[in-house]
């Protein structure tokens, strides 16, 4: 379990990004951090990842800090390396033997529908495919927690919808914790069990909305109701 308590962060120029950010995330949960641009949600994700130190408050894990995967808004691939070599990176850094790393990376690519593209270079792939490589890389080392920073924001609608469904499938299969940063109401309502709505800068939690579990149906009244709930909370947080 992860727990943030009164976390504060200032940018180097003195602007307060986060002030009094507190929430907990249970193991295996799918939680969205939703908020307007510039509310500090990406900063929160970087603090959780340990890429930035907080200026105040605490970030605690029950037990040791778990294995993490991170997916950025951009695919953030190495352009000089094949899809396979990109996915293999976390394993290479853990000194996993080459043959085993190759096998696991190939399996990770196949799971996300890129089985035939192991030898392709990033520039030969579409935006959606590059993002799939990025997700395969994040999952190849079997992380306990997956941090995603608006990963699908730059994709077209069909690619985005397909990736949403694939992400849900991988989450159900692997059972890792997912913290998903987004500024899309419908995406947060579609994906998550719980939506944490953030205020504009300096960011803190304005609403904590639990959504009904179970499979999602994009045109169902239930999904529309979830979206209405989240949307109302977001408007209230901005006011």
């Amino acid at each position, binding site marked *: 379990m992860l727990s943030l308590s009164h976390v504060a962060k200032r940018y180097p120029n003195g602007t307060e990004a986060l002030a009094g950010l507190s929430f907990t995330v249970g193991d295996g949960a799918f939680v969205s951090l939703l908020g307007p641009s510039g509310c500090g949600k990406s900063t929160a994700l970087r603090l959780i990842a340990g890429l930035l130190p907080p200026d105040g408050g605490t970030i605690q894990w029950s037990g040791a800090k778990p294995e993490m995967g*991170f997916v950025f808004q951009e695919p953030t691939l*190495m352009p000089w*390396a094949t899809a396979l070599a990109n996915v293999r*990176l*976390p394993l290479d*850094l*853990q000194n996993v033997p080459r043959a085993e790393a190759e096998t696991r990376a190939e399996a990770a690519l196949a799971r996300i529908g890129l089985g035939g593209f192991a030898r392709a270079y990033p520039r030969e792939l579409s935006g959606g495919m590059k993002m799939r490589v990025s997700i395969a890389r994040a999952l190849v080392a079997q992380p306990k927690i997956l941090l995603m920073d608006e990963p699908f924001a730059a994709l077209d609608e069909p690619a985005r919808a397909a990736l949403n469904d694939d992400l849900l499938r991988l989450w159900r299969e692997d059972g890792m914790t997912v913290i998903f940063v987004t500024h899309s109401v419908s995406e947060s309502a579609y994906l998550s069990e719980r939506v944490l709505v953030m205020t504009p800068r300096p960011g803190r939690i304005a609403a904590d909305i639990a959504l009904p579990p179970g499979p999602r149906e994009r045109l169902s009244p239930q999904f529309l109701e979830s979206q209405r709930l989240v949307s109302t909370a977001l408007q209230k947080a901005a006011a």
Partner: protein
Amino acid sequence: MRRLADLVLPVLVAVLLLGFWEWKVAHDAIPAYVLPAPSAILRALADNFPSLMASLWTTLTVTLLAFAAATIAALALAILFSESRAAQRTLYPYAVVIQVTPVVAIAPFILLWIGYDRVTVAETIIAVVVAFFPILSNATLGLRSADFNLIDLMRLYGASRWQILWRVRLPTALPALLAGMKTAGGLALIGAVVAEFVAGSGTATGLAWRIIESTNRLDIATAFAALALLVLVGLAIFHGLSLVEYLLLRRWHESAITRR
């Protein structure tokens, strides 16, 4: 078809120019000590072939040695700069000083200090000084251009500085490094030529010295033959590096990809 034209058209220009040159020299009866005809240059090349090849070897050795040394030294310094802002702030001004100092002006001192008995070493050092800076500035820029998110990702997986350098910074810098090396290859040759000019007769034995020495004897045809060989060396270095660049970048870098 395009590729054929790329080859045929420049060759056609060369044939026309050389033909005009040959005709003009014969028609105006220009003396050979002013401007030798292409045929006379070719004859001088054939007559002096063994000694010109020895000179070519000398200049080529100095140039390639200087190029390799400049590449290694400049890349090492660029890595130091990319890892330490303090080192860059401290040393970069001196790299610029070396760059802007006219090498012809300092070449005599280098020769004096190294000694005329070790003229090849002195020539190599002079050529290194000339070739050094473009590699340093390009490699520094390249090493600093690495994707911040990719570096963060490496950190997340516990990568060391060395791993980040080797796996992210150096590959990112490769296109810029190669561009710098292409410039430096030509400059290393220029540096070697300048060094031979400054070293003068009696000590230097390379192609540039042959130009001076032949000119002094009014054997302009041999001087032109040596000059032609220098041009060939320059072209070989440039195209060799272009080939290396193509082989290293063709799969992934936009600069090496031809659009269909």
